[in-house]
């Protein structure tokens, strides 16, 4: 006796797809179990490319500082130094760019290379601490997503921004020694 079972083509496709998905999940589980660093690396990669969202309510000078510091503190040892410099310079004044290239970049990339840094960051504007016409200094808080050993995640940073042709750009990041005078000022 011959029984005929009717199976729809769509059901067959669904079963095959389910088997493939289960196989992929299983393989992925085995890989992560063997090399947990791979998973965290992939996660960090995703975090690195996630930009800090600039709060729309912030004034444009603060937004400029946030954007520039985000570019500055987004560091990846696999990215060439020139590329990192170009990213920061695009958000800096010409003078600020020169300072980045000649004064800051050698030190930043020495640290990035030595510690194999691969991190993104979140930057929040805290308050404006000085205003001198078209030049303003903002206190910001930078939080590294993946800080390297020995480095704390959250750091106060003071950035000077300059307005030229209606656009606010980063002029420079103040050294800790220089910013000490603001740190000593109580928050109003």
């Amino acid at each position, binding site marked *: 006796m011959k029984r005929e079972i009717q199976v729809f083509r769509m059901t067959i496709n669904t079963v095959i797809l389910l088997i493939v998905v289960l196989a992929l999940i299983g393989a992925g589980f085995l890989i992560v179990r063997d090399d947990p660093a791979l998973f965290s690396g992939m996660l960090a990669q995703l975090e690195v490319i996630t930009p800090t969202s600039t709060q729309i309510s912030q004034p444009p000078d603060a937004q400029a500082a946030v954007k520039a510091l985000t570019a500055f503190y987004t560091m990846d040892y696999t990215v060439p130094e020139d590329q990192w410099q170009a990213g920061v310079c695009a958000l800096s004044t010409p003078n*600020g760019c020169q300072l980045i290239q000649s*004064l800051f970049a050698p030190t930043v990339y020495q640290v990035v290379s030595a510690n194999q840094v691969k991190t993104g960051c979140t930057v929040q504007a805290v308050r404006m601490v000085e205003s001198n016409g078209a030049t303003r200094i903002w206190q910001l808080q930078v939080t590294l997503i993946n800080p390297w050993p020995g480095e704390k995640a959250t750091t106060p940073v003071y950035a000077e921004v300059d307005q030229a042709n209606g656009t606010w750009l980063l002029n420079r*990041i103040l050294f800790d020694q*220089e910013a*000490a005078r603001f740190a000593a000022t109580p928050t109003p």
Partner: protein
Amino acid sequence: MKHTLILLALVILLAIPAPVLAQSQNPPAPVVDPNSIWGQVVDKNGNIRYSNLTDLGPIQKSASWMPNIPGIGNLQASYHEYQTPSGNLVVMPTATTLFFMALNPQASGLAGASSQLQLGTGTELEAAGLIKGMLNGYVDPTALTKMGYTNPDDFFSDVIAGKTDIWSGLGPNTWRFLNSLAHESLTDQSLYTTLLLYTPGDCFEVPGGCPANASLPSAPAAPTPPASSCSIPSVKSGAITVSAREIAPPYPLVVGQDTAKRGVDVTWKVTVGPTHYTYGVKVPVMGTKCISGSGTSNCTTSNNQAGTLQQVVVGYNCVQHTQIYTEGLKWVTPSASLSQTSRDWILNTLSIMYPNDYLHHPDFSFAGNPAKGSFQGSTFVLDFSESRVPVADPGYFDLGVAGATTGTPVSTWRGFSRSGGTFPVYLEEAVIIQ
């Protein structure tokens, strides 16, 4: 009669035979004695003699005295290092590094240099002067006034003393100043204005540490103590003394006021005492002991047997022996340098009477390389004199000697820099008594 009285009342104690040198001329380029320790580094025109130096390469090191980038760390200090044929180390910091070295002269090793040479027209070598020179045109007078400084020099002195910070004096000019430093410090285009020299004995003072690729003489192998040595040998190096004085004339004038352009005669004396190498030698102590055996019995041993008295070793004394090794001088450079207080007096007080006053020739150095001295007994003595030194700045000159000893078979050579005395140089001034 009235005129005569007035003339009598105006007693000129000291007439000024000549102006205190031309006040309006530009400061001269550094004069480098070709026989001095700088003679191997810079030619008489002030050009660096790169072909005469061993290039130890550019050095970049993290330094705690450099400013801190938030969340990153200290800016890297950058130098180019060279070694002279006689072994001295020459460090040329970039403009940025030099500026922060001057802000932190002790921690950075700037103050530990055996000698400094400023290229170009600058004559200020001490930290406050360096900062002042580098910040020329960048300090914001309004900011200084707000801080309560009427004299900018007081601000620079306070910065060095740690009483205030440099940033507050720069105000809105900070980025412009940092940019100028950065521009002068660009890789391969660095503008080196200050050269620091360290004798090999002071290699540990070199900023960033003694260069690993410097060729430094190694300590000689100590003589092997005798087999019967009973104590650890010790080496005590001989004392190095420096004395110096001005011989003539009794009251030297600055050459600008001296029609005879006499200058001063100066003498230096350096002595190096002998090195003492002490070691212990086991010396047997003899005594009599009753030993059983053949021969006529004349005593009883400890176990009541008949024996004979014999001379035997009953112990050892560790007797100290001292070997003396004489030590000479490999090279010396006597110097005469205007004291800091006199420099300050010229630039801050005298300049009120003589506007645009400057230091004409505050540093003299004289070669004695190789050192020509002789042994008097076991002490090496070097006498060095220099006649008619054309002192052009009034004040007190410190007399010093930098050099290196030859070492001995039991000790390595030593670098040294010592002061040995001072002498005054006078400036005639007209004083009117009414």
